[in-house]
């Protein structure tokens, strides 16, 4: 009688000081019945990996509005891998130009969500990720 609740880390890497977008996502996911670990502003890749490990999250969500996604995402991926979290997927939210989507996927980013994305879309995406993870044991 397992009672699984998806756990999501929402982190804000980089130096820009806005976390409104991250908070909107956090609330939407909570309202979709998920547990959101919110770590606040200016997270280093190492801090993100540490939180992801300790909190045993199903997915790491990065909110990046600064345009620095092409440098930040690979660094977070490396930090996760260095902690043995190769199997924990990343999703990215923010203002991501179309031409960056393919390279991000190539870096192993499981989902990219622009400003127009509905919260249902993000919720469905996470639910699919979690279902696939559970199916693989």
């Amino acid at each position, binding site marked *: 009688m397992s009672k*699984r609740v998806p756990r999501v880390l929402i982190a804000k890497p980089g130096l820009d000081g806005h976390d409104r977008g991250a908070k909107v996502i956090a609330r939407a996911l909570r309202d979709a*019945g998920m*547990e959101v*670990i919110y770590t606040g502003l200016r997270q280093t890749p190492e801090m993100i990996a540490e939180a992801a490990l300790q909190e045993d999250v199903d997915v790491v969500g990065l909110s990046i509005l600064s345009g620095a996604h092409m440098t930040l995402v690979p660094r977070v991926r490396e930090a996760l891998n260095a902690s043995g979290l190769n199997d924990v997927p990343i999703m990215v939210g923010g203002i991501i130009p179309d031409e960056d989507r393919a390279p991000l996927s190539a870096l192993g980013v499981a989902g990219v969500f622009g400003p127009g994305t509905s919260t249902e879309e993000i919720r469905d995406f996470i639910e699919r990720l979690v279902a696939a993870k559970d199916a693989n044991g």
Partner: protein
Amino acid sequence: MDNLTTQLLAGNRRALARLLSQIENQVETAAEALAQLHPHTGRAWIIGVTGAPGTGKSSLVNALAQGFRQRGQTVAILAVDPTSPFSGGAILGDRIRMRDLSGDSGVFIRSMATRGSLGGLARATRDCVRLMDAAGFDVILVETVGAGQSEIDIVRTAYTTIVVEAPGLGDDVQAIKAGILEIADVLVVNKADRPGAQQTVRALRAMLELGHPVARQVSHHGQLMTVGEAPVSSALQVEDWSPIVVETVATEKKGIDALLEAIDAHRAHLQGEAFVKRQRQNIEVELLDRLQTALLERLNRSLSSEALRDMIDQVRQRQLSPQAAVGMLLSRL
């Protein structure tokens, strides 16, 4: 021994994180892991930190953990926040205040949502603390929102309970309002940099003088009590301990040494016979709680919902008394 269990004992942090999830998700294998780990627990000093939202508990836990680290002790933190009753989801934000601890391999922080029933929460908290204990942490800090009976149940897991108060959250002293003053071994007035702090300190001291020692006696000895009815004082008090009031400014790390000393003093007080007594009380409550749950589960399995509805209808139509119905249910066990 199970793979994760072995890894946890070897200090693998991801194994600890995974087993914590198994407990939260009530995966059946978690019970077995806990049973295997039981001989490896009992080393950690468990500290409960409770109080109204916004009093500064997370900030205080951050500062306290740093204090213990400076003494060379390792620290695990379990930060509990409420689940939304509407969606079943939660935003767990306590880590925001614990940034100073990041990058320290002697610290492990886990956020936990309250999820379902309060009884279930107390059980999950206890089990999660046990995993952290088995993983070898010297000190375990459990942060909960102080709102009444549920926190009192959770705090039963702890050896030293800190109740956090802050000025400026309304006219009343929150801990008195919530009825959690009685569980305090140490009372912290945080935000001592804010106006009104002295007034809060005075109000607390006055309450303590009134309440001590009559309200603080252990009322159950060697007799099984009903879990739901366990009086507040039974979880708690060892004779002759007067709660220490400490003023802090958690965000500036002020008063933390005094708080650590108060914890030391309580720990020193709770030695020998007193500690045995406290542990006996905690274990008694736990065993009864587990027994209650197990019996109910067994009953649920032996009784179809139609049969139960049938019985309820018989009581409703006055063909069966509630007393006789319970007798019938008991005979099924």
